Each structure stands twice: as C-alpha cells, then as structure tokens.
C-alpha cells in the first residue's frame, strides 16, 4: 500500500505540468474549473440564440462571468480560518442589510430587493446564500455531531429568519435556496433520519391545518401555484410554453437558433429563468442531458472536495455549497420542465444575470479555498 502510494505520488509529481502548477499556486481545482468553464461556455452559446442573437447581451454575460471568476479567484486565496472567523459577522451584517431593505420597501410601499450603492446595486439576499451556510457551519464547528435538539432549534432560527425576510421581499426562489443551503449544513452534519421524518410529518400536519384555515381564493392561489396549467393565460402561460418548447424539441432538437418557441417570443424569460427550455427546444434531450451530466460532474467533484477537507466547518460549508448548487439546478430545471411549481430560480452559470453568477462562483471560490488550504490547518 505504502509503496503504491509512493509511486502514485512520485508519478503525479513527475507529470505535473505548468498548468497544474499554476492551478496549484492559484489554489484552484482543475477538474472543477473545467466543469464550470464548460457549463459557462455552453451557456454563452445558448444565450446567443435565446437572446435573439444579441451579441451585446452575450458580451455582458461574459462580463458577469469575469466578475464571478474574479470573486472565485479572490476567495480561493482566502484562508479558511478567516472565512470561519468572519462567518458570524457576515451573517449579522446580512441580517441587518435585509432589515434595511425591508424597511425601505415598507416605506416605499413596493417590492424591494435591491440596495442601491450608487456604483452598483447590491442584493443582500445573494449574500445570505453564502452567509447562512457559513453561519450554520460556524455554529456546528465545535459541537458534537449529530447536533442536539436545542442546537437544532437555534439553527432553525438562524435559517428561518433570513429566509423568511427574503421570502417576504418577495423572492420565493432565493428564500428557498437560502433555506436549502442552511438545511443542507444540518443534514450533512448528521441530522438523524428520525428527526427529519418527524420534521416532515410536522410540516405535513402544518400544511394540512393551514389548508383548512385558508379562504377559498387563497386555496385557488395555492392550487394554481402547484398546478399552473390550470391557469393557461396567467401563471400557467410560462410553464405551458416552456413544456411546449421542450417537448417539441424532441431528442435532437430543432437546431441552434431554430427554436420557434424561443425565437418568436412565445417562451417568456427565455434568456433568464427559462433558458433551459431553449436548450430543450434547440438541442433536444441530448443537449439537456449533456448539461445535466456536466452539472452532476461539477456537484460530484465538489462533494469529493468537501470530503477531502479536514475540519467540521470546512466539510459542512463545502458540502452545503456543493449540494446547494445542485438544488439550484434541480429547482430550475424541474420548474422549467413542469415538475415543480414556478419559483424564480436561475439556471446556474447559464441564465443571463450577474448577481447569482457572482454568488455562485464566489461559493466555488470558497469551496476551492477550503480544499486547497487543507494542509495548512494542522500547522
């Protein structure tokens, strides 16, 4: 065994290329980077078609990618100890900003998600996508795992308060993702299945009771949300058009820039939340499955990296970031293909938009930092 490991290691050392040495120096993970890059390039190709062949939009998306890559590179250099130390402060700052945004929104009598900082607009909810799992991991870092019930109650509070604030903005998609990121930390920390089962039963009971407390029109709203096709001209329009787009694409698709649903504006938000339907229409099932495989590869690699980290904080945070990424993917693709209700969640690295791109790549930067700095922990 030892002999083999030595030869493996020596061969690895011998075959280290310049690129690998550079990646090592930049604290980046090669396979993960390649997976992310492939998804991003695929996304740009699709975006060109989905945007109605607007090159300007593609170039702006390249800008978003560059910003995200910079954030990733920067965070990869940060020492995990620093990340761990700032976690509670970041979380507290995020809560404060959410409250400010909510306050402004209350005064302005309208939906408010943004904080206008003059130079750019900042979305505190994006920050919370990272801050909540960091906080949860920070809280659990020295406690014995699986967490005790009082710890769980506190964790629940830590997660529900920011998620609730975001849902009330209202931004159901981001709120869901924040909740998922926090909950995943707890689940990865070894939350007992019986507790999960009990929570699920409690949720079901609460749902059942809540259903009976709702007024008729409120129930209708929930039903429409669960089954949008019952309202073809309102909430259902998006989902009907996107299933048509995907279904009409067939196995091989209609060809790049030949998707009539997307090109003739039948598919709403074809560049943003519903871009997966454009892939389905123009590249067919093959194109969609290829993208899913890329995502699964990225998630798999990220989970692998998480298992290689050496302390509880790193493991929980890295694992949560990895699985949350897949939550993004599944919620978006599930919604676009009509499996899940419509909540506004972009397709990671493919949908047009800057905020989520930067947050996602920042998350991967943190993940790479947690992995690549692991030898430093002992010293």
């Amino acid at each position: 065994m030892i002999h083999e490991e030595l030869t493996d290691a020596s061969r690895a050392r011998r075959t280290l290329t310049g690129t690998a040495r550079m990646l090592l120096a930049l604290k980046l993970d090669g396979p993960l980077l390649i997976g992310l890059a492939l998804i991003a390039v695929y996304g740009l190709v699709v975006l060109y078609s989905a945007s109605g062949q607007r090159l300007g939009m593609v170039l702006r998306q390249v800008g978003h990618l560059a910003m995200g890559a910079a954030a990733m590179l920067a965070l990869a250099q940060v020492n995990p100890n620093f990340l761990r130390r700032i976690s509670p402060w970041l979380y507290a700052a995020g809560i404060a900003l959410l409250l400010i945004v909510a306050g402004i929104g209350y005064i302005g009598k309208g939906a408010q998600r943004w904080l206008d900082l003059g130079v750019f607009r900042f979305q505190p909810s994006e920050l919370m996508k990272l801050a909540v799992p960091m906080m949860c991991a920070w809280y659990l870092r020295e406690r014995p795992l699986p967490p005790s019930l009082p710890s769980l109650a506190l964790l629940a509070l830590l997660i529900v308060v920011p998620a609730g604030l975001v849902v009330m903005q209202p931004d159901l998609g981001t709120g869901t993702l924040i909740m998922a990121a926090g909950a995943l930390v707890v689940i990865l920390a070894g939350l007992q299945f019986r507790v999960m089962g009990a929570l699920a039963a409690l949720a079901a009971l609460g749902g059942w009771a809540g259903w009976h407390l709702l007024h008729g029109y409120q129930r209708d709203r929930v039903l429409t949300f669960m089954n949008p096709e019952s309202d073809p001209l309102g909430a259902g329009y998006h989902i009907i058009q996107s299933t048509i787009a995907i279904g009409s694409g067939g196995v091989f698709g209609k060809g790049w820039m030949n998707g009539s649903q997307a090109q003739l504006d039948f598919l709403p938000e074809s560049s943003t939340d519903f871009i997966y339907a454009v892939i389905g229409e123009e590249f067919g099932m093959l194109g969609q499955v290829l993208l899913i495989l890329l995502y699964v590869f990225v998630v798999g690699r990220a989970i692998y990296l998480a298992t290689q980290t050496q302390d509880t904080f790193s493991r929980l945070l890295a694992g949560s970031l990895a699985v949350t990424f897949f939550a993004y993917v599944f919620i978006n693709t599930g919604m676009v293909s009509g499996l899940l209700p419509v909540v506004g969640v972009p397709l990671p690295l493919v949908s047009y938009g800057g905020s989520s791109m930067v947050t996602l790549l920042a998350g991967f930067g943190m993940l790479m930092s947690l992995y690549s700095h692991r030898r430093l922990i002992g010293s």
Partner: protein
Amino acid sequence: MVQGVRIKDHWKEQRLFERRALLAVAVVALLALVLCGRLYLLQVIRHDRYSQLSQGNRVRVEPIPAARGLMYDRNGTVLASGQPAYQLELVREEVPNLDATLQGLVAIGLLTDDELPEVRRNILSRRSFDSVPVRLRMSDEDAARFAVHRFEFPGVDIKTRESRLYPYGPLAVHAIGYVSAISEQDLAHIDRAAYSGTALIGKLGVEAAYEKELHGTNGYREILVNAEGRSVDKLGALTLQLKTQAPVAGDDLVLALDLKTQEAAEQALGDRRGAVVALDPRNGDVLALVSHPAFDPNLFAHGIGRAEYAALADDPDKPLLDRALRGTYPSGSTIKPALALAALTDHAVDPNHKVFCDGVFHLPGSRHLFRSDKDDPRGWIALSEAISRSSDVYFYGLAATLGIDRIAAFLTPLGYGRLTGIDIGGEKPGLLPTPAWKREAFSRPEDQVWFPGETVNMGLGQGYLLVTPLQLAHITGIIAERGRDFRPRVVKGVRDPDGHTRWLTPIEDQPILGVADADWSFVIEAMIGTTRCAQYCGTAWEAFKGAAYAAAGKTGTAQVYTVGQNATYNANIVPERLRDHAWFVAFAPAEAPRIAIAVLVENAGFGADAAAPLARKVLDAYLLGPDGRLKAQFAPPASDATDTRAAATRTADARPTGAGQAAR
C-alpha cells in the same frame, strides 16, 4: 486527553459526513434521473403533441382570396370586374375588447354608430380567427387616418382586397346583380371555411345565381407569427416548412346581354318607371333586361351605408324592385294573340267571321257593361283585324266563347302563371286565374265563385291575371318560334381561368303542340298588322313607320284603376300612380325572329303611344347596323332584307289561312 477526545470525535464525524456525502451523491443522481425521466416523457413520448402545439403557436394560416370571375357581355365588353381596394378587417381573437375597439373605430370616424350593431353581430357570427371586414373600400384618407391610430387597435388591420367594379354603374343591374359584404344570413348557407378571406358575396342577379362559378377557390398562406400574433420574417429553417396554396380564380361569365341593346333600352325608358326584356327566341338569350329606376351596384360593393340603403329601400319608385322579373301587372291586350291561338286551335271561332263592334259588350244574362276604350275600332271586324287593331269587344266575345277552362288549358303551357325558369333568381310566376285557383285563394264562399264576367275580362288581360315583363317576352318568343320554348338565360358561357369557354347549351322546354302551322302564321300575320297600315292601320303603326324590318307586335294597356260603370277614364283626372300601364310586345324580323321583346312603362297610358316607340328603339339598336340597315346576320333567309313587305306577303301567300285572307 481533550486532544484525544477531539481526534476521536473528528474521525467519527468525518465518517458521518462521508456517509452523508455519499447519500447526497445518491440523491443528486436520483434527482438527475427523475429529471431525465421527465425529459423523456416530454421529448419522446409526448413529442408529437408538443410539436403540433408549437407549430400551431407559430404558424397562422392566412387565406388568399380568389379573384372573382369577371362578366362580359356577348361581345366581350366587361360588365363587372375586380378592383383592388383597402378594407379594414378585424380578427376577433386578437382583439382584447371588441366593444371598446369598435367604439374606438367610431371615434376616429371609420364606423358610424348605427352600423355598430350589425358589424358587431357579423363579427360574432364568424369564426374567432377569421379576418372579418368591418369597412369595405376605404379611401386613401381613411387608410391614412387609421394608420395613425393603428397601435391602438390590435387585431384590426388594413388589407388590400379585391373589390368589385361595375364600369357601367346601374346598367343592367337587375340582371347582373351586385356583390355585397357577407351577411349573417349568407353565412347560414355557405361553407365558412371556403369563404374565409372572402369579403363579398353575390346578392342578386347573375352575381348571386352564379356565385359558385364566380367565387373560385381561395388559397392560403402559412405565415410565421410571434407571440403577439404579428407576422414576422425569419430566414432559415423556420420558414422553409411553410406551405402556400395559390388560389384558383373564379370563372368568368359571358352574358347573353348585348350592351348596345341594353343601353338603348335604358335610354328609351329614360326616367320613366318600367321594364324592358329582350330575348333571342331561338335560344332564350336575354339580350337586354332593364328595370327602371335602377341603382348603382357599386354602392353595395363599396359597403353601402345605412342611410344610403334606407334611401333606396324607401324610394316610392322602388329602384330595388326588379320589375322585369318580379313586377306583376295585368297583361292588358298583349294577351290577345295567345287567346286568338287558343280559339283557332280549338276551332272556337271562324277567323273570317265578323263581329259588330260598337264599343260596349253585353254578356248575355248580365247587366254589366264591358266597356272598351274610346279608340276601340267600330263596325264589322274579323279576328285578324281584331288583333291588329286590338278590338276589345271582339275579344270580350272570344273569351266568353272559349270559356275559362279552355283559356287556362292553352295559356298555361304557353307560360302564363308559371315561372320561365330564367337562370337568375327571384322571378315571380304571375297569376293565371282559374275557377280552381279562386276556390283556393279566397276563404269566403261568396268570393270563391267564378263569375262569367271574369272570363270576359280575360279577353283583355284584366281581372286577376298578372304577368311579368320577362314572362311576356318569353311568351312572345314562343309565338315567334311557333311553339318552341327556350328557357331564358342571362349567362351563355363560362370561361375558366385558363381561358377555355364552355358554351352552355340552350335549354328547350316542352314545345307548344297541337297548334296548326297555319294558325301560327295567321296570328303572326295579324301581329305584323299591328305595326303597319294596309286596309287598316294597326295600333302600333306609327311607332314602326319606316322600319327596316317587319316586326310582329301587340300593344297593351293594363288598367290599374277600375272606371265606374257610367264614368269615362280620363287620364288627366286620375292620379299618376293609378294611370294605366303601357305594354308592348314584339318580335322581329317577323319572318326569321331574332329578338322578342316586352316593354312595360308604368302609369304611362296607352301601349301604342308609350311603349311601342320604346320597343322600336330597342329593336333598331339590336337589328340595325350603323348604316341603318338590317345587319346581314339578321337578314331573313332567301329574301331581300330591306323589302320586308314583299317577304311578308310571300310568307302569307304560301299559307291557306294567312293574314291576307283574314284581312279581307
């Protein structure tokens, strides 16, 4: 110690995390599979369904209306053609709020308030995706006005469509008919799919009767639309599969009408109310069909306004009424040749027997006086003279002798009281009264009795008897052809879009049998006598002075108003609408008839004065060349065309009971 515990914890927790990570990978894989399963369902199992939905989304079928067939007169002059015009069309399913949209169109002056209910009803009766015309034939100004407001009216658009142009306006409108916007009633009997995209439909005359031939087959074009329903041009694979089906233009029609004759007839009538029908007795071709006053069919093709239509409908002169086919009048004395034929055929009278006429007829057993006109011939009169000079007293007696049953039995096959079967719609059968009819028509028993005096009235074509000008022209044609009965027709040929003309075979109905050739000749000679002066002058001799052909005719005066027993009819004191209608029927050249005509002038008085000169003008227009001589093609066979008198005499000499003997 603490360190050891932590290390132990660390190991345990790492194992726990790895198990959870493995679980996460499994869940990720499972969800990815669920997703792939969903994609398989959508893209493989339900692919066809979604393909169709996608196709339906982006492709809209737009009809291409076929060009409506043109109409020519017998010499190739265009009587009805197409004309491109702007029209405003509305697609209901693309209009967010129909009522608001229509109100908006009223606000910018493209519709009027009183048109609204009808336009609205019309739109609602069409399929929601049909483009329904809401305003036909817009002026450039209207089009510009709409263009400014276009963005306010989604689903409403200006289309260039073919409209109808009648270059001669009101000329022959009652024969040609007109086209107008498709109405709710039309929709009940047409194939909506076939008329999708068609704005106009034939409403009357040839336009209506030959709608099927004229309409053609609409084509369609699949166009690419975006989510707003706007047509978009995209290159590439999207447009490649779009189908286009070219329309097939409607058939052109060659009418039997002769423009020159028609114009002459219209001019001859001038502004008087009346009708002229001229036929070619050899095949039923309608050479001229006039009903005055007329109206401009272009009004209807433009989209007639409510007020304009009301003005036409409420006009006391009834321009919309086709007097030629639907105007029913007493025949007056024009019935006399037919009665004479009946009497001769049944040997009810001796043509040489003379009757003493003194202006009044007494029916044996009745105190009623049957008056004749003050100009009625007096003295001893035989049948031939009684026809030529239109003796009322003679025919009172003849009718009484024949009896109503024999009269009806002869007149029915000749065409009285029945439809001629002309190829355009709307004709009325008139009425040939009989005792049986009277029993049916009246409810009170005392009204159901047939009085002998009513039979006497038949001798003058009065009483309940009603005929249409078309009927009389047709009957005159049958006499001209000595019993051969050709169904009148306005259309004689159908030309398909490739230019091949299919000439329609004239339809010959059951001929009049049992009339001796000599009796035909006798009556025809007597009718020729109407138009000339020999031993005596016929009633219409003045009108036919110097004619280049022999015409056989009969005048008629149809009473509208019954003069009291002791009163005399004085046109000057009778209101105009109650004055007598003037009739004249004729055919010419008498030896080889090429045209049979019936002229009716309403409330104009004596047929000889008011109607015969008109008939002369029409006959001249048709028969004479520019040099004032009979056209070569109308020259009677084997005789000098100009010497009609000689020809007539020769014909008469060849027959044992010709006009010559009868006139003795």
